[in-house]
C-alpha cells in the first residue's frame, strides 16, 4: 500500500530485504546455529535463574559479548552506524533463539524498540537539520555493541502511539531541552544508560534522549510477575534532554519502532513456545503412568498436537510481519495489518503452549524448580506488552471486516423447492 509506505520515515536506513518470503539464507541458518550454541552455554537455565535474581537482572558481560563478539544486537543497524548492516530478518533469527533460551537482558527496550526508533530517526529530516546525526550514530553504535543499554519511555496505547497520552513535557533551555513528567512501567528502564522519551514540546510531541544516570532522573524499580523482564517507573524533573525527532517526525518514528518491536516480540514468542513444546513432548515420551508413556494417551497427545498447530500458525504470522516490515518490493504487504495479525496470534499461541506445558508436566510443572513457570510468566508478559491479543484483534477487525472481497452466499428463505434456485 503506497499510503503505508509513504508513512515510513523518508529513506529509513534499515536495509530492505529481497529474499523470498519464508525462506532463510545459509548465513541466517548459520547465525541461528551460532546463537543456539551460545545460548546453550551462556543462557542456560541456571544462568537465567542467576540473572533474574541479580541487580541488574542480566549479566552485563554476556550482553556485551552478544553485542561485540556475536554482533546480534544491531543486526539491522546500518554499518555506518556500527551495526551489522543486515536486515530485520537477520535480527528476527537472533531474537527467536534468544527468546527460546529466555536470555536475560534489555532486549525489549534496547533491541526491539530503541534501536529501531533511532534507525528510523536517522532517516527523518529532523535529525539532519538539528545536527544530531552523529550523536544518534554514536548511541546506535554503543547500543549495538552492547556497551550501553536503553529503554523506550513512550507509553504506547495498545501498541500504538497516542499523542494525547504523552505524560511528559519538554521545555526549551539554553543548552537544549528539559523534560518533566512521569512514565509508568517502562521495561528495562531500571538499568538503562539512556532513555528515549516521548514528550510534548511547544510544537507537539517529540522524541528526546535522556541520560538515565544524569540529573533530574529518578527510576523506581518495580517487582514484576516476570523476573526476567524488569520494569521501572521513570520520573523526570527538569531532566536535560536532546531532541531526536521533532513534532513533524516523532509519530512516524515511534510508529515504526512500535511495529518493529511488535514483530520482534512476536518472533520471541515463537522461539519460546517452540522451546516449551519440545520440552513437553520429551516429557510426555519419558513420563510413565499406568504403565505407559503419558504421551500415548490421546488426551495428552491431542493437546500437544493442538499446540503444534498453534505454534506453526504463530510462526507463519510472525515471519509474515517481519517480511512485511522489511519488504523492498513495495507490493501490497500491509505492515500495520501484518503486525496486528502476528501480535494477536502469537500472544494467544505462546500463552496456550505455556499453559499446556504446566498441565502436561503435572505437579512438577507447578514447582519453582521447574522452568515452566519462567516461560509462563514471560508468556503473559509478552502478551500484555505492546497491545494484548484482544486489542490487536480489534484492530484487525477494523482493517478487514468492512471490506468483503466477494458476494455474500445465498441464504435459504424456505421458499425454494430444493432445486437450489437463487432466491
Amino acid at each position, binding site marked *: 500500500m503506497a499510503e503505508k509506505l509513504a508513512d515510513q520515515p523518508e529513506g529509513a536506513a534499515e536495509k530492505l530485504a529481497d529474499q523470498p518470503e*519464508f525462506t532463510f539464507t545459509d548465513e541466517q541458518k548459520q547465525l541461528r546455529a551460532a546463537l543456539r550454541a551460545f545460548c546453550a552455554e551462556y543462557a542456560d537455565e541456571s544462568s537465567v535463574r542467576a540473572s533474574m535474581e541479580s541487580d541488574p537482572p542480566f549479566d552485563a558481560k554476556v550482553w556485551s559479548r552478544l553485542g561485540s563478539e556475536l554482533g546480534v544486537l544491531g543486526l539491522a543497524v546500518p554499518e555506518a552506524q556500527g551495526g551489522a548492516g543486515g536486515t530485520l530478518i537477520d535480527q528476527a533469527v537472533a531474537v527467536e533463539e534468544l527468546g527460546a533460551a529466555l536470555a536475560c537482558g534489555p532486549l525489549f527496550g534496547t533491541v526491539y524498540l530503541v534501536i529501531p526508533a533511532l534507525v528510523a530517526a536517522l532517516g527523518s529530516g529532523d535529525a539532519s537539520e538539528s545536527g544530531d546525526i552523529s550523536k544518534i550514530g554514536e548511541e546506535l553504535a554503543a547500543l549495538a555493541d552492547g556497551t550501553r543499554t536503553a529503554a523506550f519511555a513512550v507509553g504506547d496505547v495498545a501498541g500504538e502511539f497516542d499523542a494525547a497520552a504523552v505524560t511528559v513535557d519538554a521545555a526549551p533551555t539554553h543548552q537544549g531541552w528539559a523534560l518533566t513528567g512521569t512514565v509508568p512501567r517502562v521495561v528495562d528502564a531500571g538499568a538503562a544508560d539512556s532513555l528515549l522519551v516521548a514528550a510534548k514540546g511547544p510544537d507537539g510531541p517529540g522524541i528526546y534522549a535522556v541520560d538515565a544516570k544524569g540529573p533530574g532522573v529518578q527510576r523506581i524499580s518495580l517487582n514484576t510477575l516476570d523476573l526476567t523482564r524488569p520494569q521501572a517507573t521513570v520520573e523526570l524533573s527538569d531532566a536535560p534532554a536532546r531532541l531526536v525527532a521533532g513534532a513533524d517526525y516523532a509519530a512516524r518514528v515511534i510508529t515504526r519502532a512500535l511495529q518493529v518491536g511488535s514483530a520482534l516480540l512476536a518472533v520471541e514468542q515463537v522461539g519460546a513456545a517452540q522451546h516449551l513444546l519440545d520440552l513437553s513432548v520429551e516429557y510426555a515420551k519419558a513420563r510413565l503412568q499406568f504403565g505407559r508413556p503419558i504421551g500415548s494417551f490421546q488426551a495428552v497427545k491431542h493437546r500437544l498436537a493442538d499446540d503444534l498447530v498453534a505454534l506453526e*500458525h504463530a510462526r507463519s504470522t510472525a515471519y509474515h510481519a517481519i517480511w512485511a516490515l522489511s519488504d523492498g518490493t513495495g507490493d501490497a504487504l500491509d505492515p500495520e495489518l501484518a503486525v496486528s495479525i502476528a501480535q494477536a496470534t502469537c500472544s494467544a499461541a505462546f500463552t496456550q503452549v505455556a499453559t499446556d506445558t504446566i498441565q502436561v508436566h503435572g505437579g512438577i510443572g507447578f514447582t519453582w524448580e521447574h522452568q515452566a513457570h519462567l516461560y509462563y510468566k514471560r508468556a503473559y508478559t509478552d502478551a500484555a506488552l505492546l497491545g494484548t491479543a484482544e486489542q490487536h484483534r480489534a484492530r484487525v477487525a477494523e482493517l478487514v*471486516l468492512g471490506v468483503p472481497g466477494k458476494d455474500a452466499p445465498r441464504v435459504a428463505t424456505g421458499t425454494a423447492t430444493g432445486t437450489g434456485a437463487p432466491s
Partner: protein
Amino acid sequence: MSAGTDSDRVTQAAHRVVAEHDPRSVPIPEFLGACFDAGLSWVHFPEGLGGLGVSRGLQAVADRILQDAGGPVPLALNPMGYGMAAPTVREHAQSDDVRKTLLRPLATTEDIWCQLFSEPGAGSDLAGLATSAVADGENWVVNGQKVWTSLAHRARWGLLLARTDPNVPKHRGLTYFVLDMHADGVQTRPLRQLTGHAEFNEVYITDARIPDSYRLGAVGDGWRVAMTTLMNERSALGGSASRRGAGAIGDAVALWASRPDLHTPVLRDRLTILWLRAESQRLTSERSRASATVGGPGPEGSIGKLVGAELNQHIYGFCMDLLGPEGLLYDGYAMRDGAASGEDWRGSVQQRFLRSRANTIEGGTSEVMRNILAERVLGLPGDLRADAGMPWKEIPRG
C-alpha cells in the same frame, strides 16, 4: 538439466497446447487429451504417461498457463482420478500397457474414478476392512460392501482395497485392485446424507471378477499402496494456494458485511478470531509451499486438513448464529446428487453449515489427524492397540 530449462519446456508445451487446442472452443476431453499428450497432466510423470519427467513443482507453471487460457481445473472434474488414482496407477500398475489404458481416459475425464476403501465396519480403522478377494485362475472374485463412495454412480473405475488373506494381521492381508464399475456384480446405490442430498454411494459387490493384471502392487501389499493414495488425498485436500479472505471465511465476512442489522460486539470478535485463524492457516500453507521448494515439506504441511475442517465448521456455525431465526429455513430436502448444475454446488449458507459436519470425518477424522500430527510430527508414542499382531479373522468386530 537445470530447473530453468525444465521450466521453459513446461512453459513452451503449455503455450503450444493452448494455441493448438483453444480451451474456450474445443470440448474439454479434447483439450485435456492434448494436455496429456503434451505431458502436462502430471509433469513429474514419465513422458508418454501424461508427464515430462520434470519436478512436480513445475505443475503450477503449466496449470497457470492452461487455466489462464480458460482451461478447466481437472482435479475438480475427476477428483479421485487426478488426485488419487493417477499417482497410484503410475507407481503400482504391473505394466505400461495398463498405465496407458487407464491414464489417458482418466486425464480426459471420459473415465471418472471413485475410491472403494471405507466400509460399514471399517472407517478410521481402514485396515480392518472385510471385503474379500479370492484368487480364481487369472481372476480375483470380490465380495463385500463399500460406503461413502463419491461419484460411484458416474465412475468407470474404482480403486479397491480388499482382503486377500484373513489369516494374517490386518495390515498384511490386503491387496489393491482397480475394479471395473460396469462389471457384473457391482451395484451402486445413492447414500442420502443429513443435508438431504446424496453426494456419496454405497457399493455392493457380489462375485465381481477382476483380472489379475488390474492388481496394483503385490498380493498382500495393499496397505502400502493405499498409503500412496491417502497421502495424495490429504495433500489434495489441504494444499492449494488462496488469496487472503478467500474461501469459507470470505463467505462469513461477506455475509457479515451484508447484514449490519445483525451486528453485535460478541459476534464481531468471534468472526475476527475465525478470520485470524483462516489467515494464519493461509500463511502457513504459503510457508509450507516455500519450504517445499527448498527441501521436503515441514510439519507445517501436515496441519492443513485438520485446521481446514474445523475452521469450516466454526465459520458456518458462526453464519448460522449470525442469522439467528432466519437460519432455520432451508431449500427443502428433495434428494439430488452433489453435482447439480447452475448455482454454486455448495448451495445455501444453511446447506453449507449442515455439509460442514462431514469435514472432520471425511478424509481422516480429526481424531486420526491429531494422532498423525502427534505421532509422526512430534514423535509421541502410538496408541495402545488391542488387535496388535492378531490374525484379522480373530479380531472382535461390531
